[in-house]
């Protein structure tokens, strides 16, 4: 069956149909909303990086004091640590509420897409409490502008500099390098080419990685002093990356910006971004025509992301077929909350302990610990990476719990018609009608392939 525009718009490009939120009716409406003000973020604020970084710094001081101090130092640290954990979980709750209530679902999906593209995992290196703030500051405001701007904002952000060890990289021939006998760390340079821009099939070599590592020296951040370009740590001399020369005798931040502007407009970058968008939203093996259309829009517009989104949404393949992708666990949970019409207060007023029990931990068992993918390549895309026996069991278990909490008043057959509209198969509706109880029927629907695919 051919789905209506608004059905696919919500399921494929948003967080699913809801009895409480009107679905968009056209591509223009989707893009106009995205181009407009970020209403939901204003309504449900999340702390930015600066506040969280200050918190992390204070926590670091208390952690140190705890080692030498007495019982009061212990208590002070534990209290601050508990507070930070509470804030983290509260921000996680807000991250659920925004897409749960927003009529601008495409923006929320793009947020997760770009946060994954520019992964900073919230584990280790002091990043646990600051990653949400990084996404809020470095990704969210820049998703509708130019890719080069987003690239600079994300890949040079302090959180990224820490995550990919750039803060450890020092030009061996720089003043600091010679004094401390320190040198390069290639991590950010490699991932910048492989993951952030050109893709692993891009036309770059180990030599480019090495030269870029030299170019990136000087970027520095720590929680105490903040961001600083340290010319004294920058490798002196001209660097040749991808056939172009950057920098001179004394390194400066503008050399790095100039390189990133060029890198953003490399055809391999256009191709990689286009392919990733199509894979994320449409199919694990996307229509090559669509990838080409997005890539062309990218290059012709000078990397204007809105033009890329338009090219994707206006391509016929965007509105054909259904269900070749699996909803990732976060998306699965949010689309459940939307389908059940769960109200803001149910999540906003939930104690943090319950937020963990009901959402964070099950999400982890489904294979997606919140903001903690295994590496800088982020979460996998293929359906069979998510639909494993252990993950399916976790989805069914969670569906049972959530239907007991929120599903009591719902007839599972109505739920199917709300959540899938005309895509609700009569056979599915019939099976749901045979459940022993409404709660079980709701859980069955939430476990059904049709609701787990998009």
């Amino acid at each position, binding site marked *: 069956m051919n789905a209506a525009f608004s059905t696919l718009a919500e399921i494929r490009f948003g967080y699913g149909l809801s009895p409480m939120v009107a679905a968009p009716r056209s591509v223009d409406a989707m893009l106009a909303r995205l181009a407009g003000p970020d209403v939901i973020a204003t309504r449900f604020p999340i702390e930015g990086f600066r506040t969280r970084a200050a918190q992390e710094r204070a926590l670091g001081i208390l952690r140190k004091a705890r080692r030498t101090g007495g019982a009061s130092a212990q208590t002070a640290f534990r209290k601050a640590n508990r507070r930070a954990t509470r804030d983290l979980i509260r921000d996680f709750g807000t991250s659920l509420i925004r897409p749960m209530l927003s009529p601008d679902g495409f923006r929320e999906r793009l947020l997760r897409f770009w946060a994954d593209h520019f992964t900073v995992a919230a584990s280790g290196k002091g990043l646990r409490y600051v990653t949400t703030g990084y996404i809020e500051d470095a990704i969210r405001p820049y998703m509708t502008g130019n890719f080069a701007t987003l690239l600079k904002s994300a890949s040079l952000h302090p959180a990224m500099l820490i995550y990919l060890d750039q803060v450890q990289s020092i030009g061996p021939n720089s003043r600091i390098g010679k004094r401390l006998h320190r040198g390069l760390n*290639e991590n950010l340079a490699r991932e910048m080419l492989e993951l952030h821009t050109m893709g*692993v099939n891009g036309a770059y070599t180990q030599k480019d*990685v090495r030269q870029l590592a030299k170019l990136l020296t000087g970027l520095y951040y720590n929680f105490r002093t903040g961001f600083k370009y340290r010319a004294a740590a920058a490798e002196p001399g001209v660097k040749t990356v991808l056939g172009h020369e950057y920098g001179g005798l004394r390194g400066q931040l503008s050399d790095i910006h100039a390189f990133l502007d060029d890198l953003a407009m490399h055809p391999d970058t256009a191709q990689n971004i286009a392919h990733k968008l199509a894979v994320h939203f449409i199919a694990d093996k996307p229509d090559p025509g669509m990838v080409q259309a997005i890539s062309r829009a990218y290059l012709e517009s000078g990397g204007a992301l809105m033009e890329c989104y338009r090219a994707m949404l206006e391509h016929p393949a965007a509105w054909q077929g259904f269900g070749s992708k699996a909803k990732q666990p976060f998306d699965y949970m949010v689309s459940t909350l939307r389908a059940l019409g769960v109200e803001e207060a149910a999540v906003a007023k939930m104690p943090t302990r319950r937020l963990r*029990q009901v959402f964070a931990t099950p999400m982890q*068992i489904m294979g997606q610990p919140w903001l903690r993918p295994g590496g800088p390549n982020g979460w996998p895309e293929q359906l*069979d990476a998510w639909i494993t*026996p*252990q993950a399916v*069991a976790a989805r069914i278990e969670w569906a049972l719990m959530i239907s007991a909490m929120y599903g009591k008043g719902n007839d599972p057959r109505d739920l199917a018609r709300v959540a899938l509209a005309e895509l609700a198969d009569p056979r599915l509706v019939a099976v*749901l009608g045979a459940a022993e109880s409404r709660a079980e029927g709701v859980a069955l629907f939430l476990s059904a392939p049709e609701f787990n695919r998009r």
Partner: protein
Amino acid sequence: MTSSTSATRRDFLIRSGALGGALALGPLSAPMTLAAAPWDARLVVIILRGAMDGLEVVRPEGDPLFAQYRPTLGDRTGSHDLDGYFALNRHLEGLMPLWQKGELAFAHAVATPYRDKRSHFDGQDMLEAGTGTDVGLRAIRDGWLNRMLGHVPGVSVKTAFAVGHEDMKILNGAVPVSSWAPDARLDLTPQGRRLLQALYRGDPVFQAAGQTAIELAALSDQGAPSGQEGSAMAMSAMMRNPARAERAAALAKFAAERLNEETRIAAFSIGGWDTHRTQANAIRRALGELSAAILGLQKTLGSNWKKTVVMAMTEFGRTARENGSRGTDHGTGGVMLMAGGAIRGGRVFGRWPGLRPEQLYQDRDLMPTRDVRAYPAHAMRAMFGLSSSLLEGTIFPGLDMGMDPHILA
């Protein structure tokens, strides 16, 4: 509905990714007898994700260049001499008794055919696919352990088991295999179970995964309270986020329990090897997990340990020289670990290329002197009676197995 219900009662477990296999075997309701395991030998493959630094783990301390290349990481405090030239990293101290008993060995200076781009993710794909550079990475559809299973008789879905939450591409492919994580569970009424099977019937991926989930849930924590509140409690127990070594031990224990039953091949992964900075500390946790996993296998396997070969391998090694932040960057040649009562241990296999600049790969990485695939190839020939032509032509296409290193006792 009746037919799919009866199917659950049989031991018919299919991994979600194995759609082709499910179809090849016919409808789920087809009668199927569970063959006895084809062999008695056990093979465990551990994928070490993130590029383990072979030079850090099995350290060529006999060469003064090692300390020169690694001004801080070269510190030999606490490492354990293995053979007068190599020393074992101090965080693997717990494995020394195995070394002394001849149940631990290494193959040094090994690598997959992957070269130069040094991407973790492509490197891991190639390691698990077992292919050479002649096959495009994007063209790889299955893993080498799965291809192997396609060429031996008497294989059931329980013969091979992928353990944990990580996608194990090494076992993906046409032959149905099992997969489960020790912390997963499922608690459905019989009616709910029947309906679920009805819902999944038209969807092979969900059907395969769901069927396995229903079967395997019984293997997980039986003591947990049941019912919906019970589910929440079981999940909240998971929040405690056990120490990583405990998690690795739990994976190993679960794998060993399956291996004590019908399973003969198990695979899981251990991450945390991407030690770009302060490696001496950063590698401690990962080595702790590896050590806990191997000791956990040994403990739970009991008398089956003597029939077992464990192979732990990584996508590539790291730079010979320490980088600017007391870590190492992505390299080429590395080390593979072997353990088990069935191996001829207590030695470091492989031809050592040397550490002089001109002996390194691109004056940067340890030079690989042997294809890492040669070791599992020789092991599987000895354990499962596979022919060299099958191993070199199909399981590891393009591999030259070369001289038999005789890694089995």
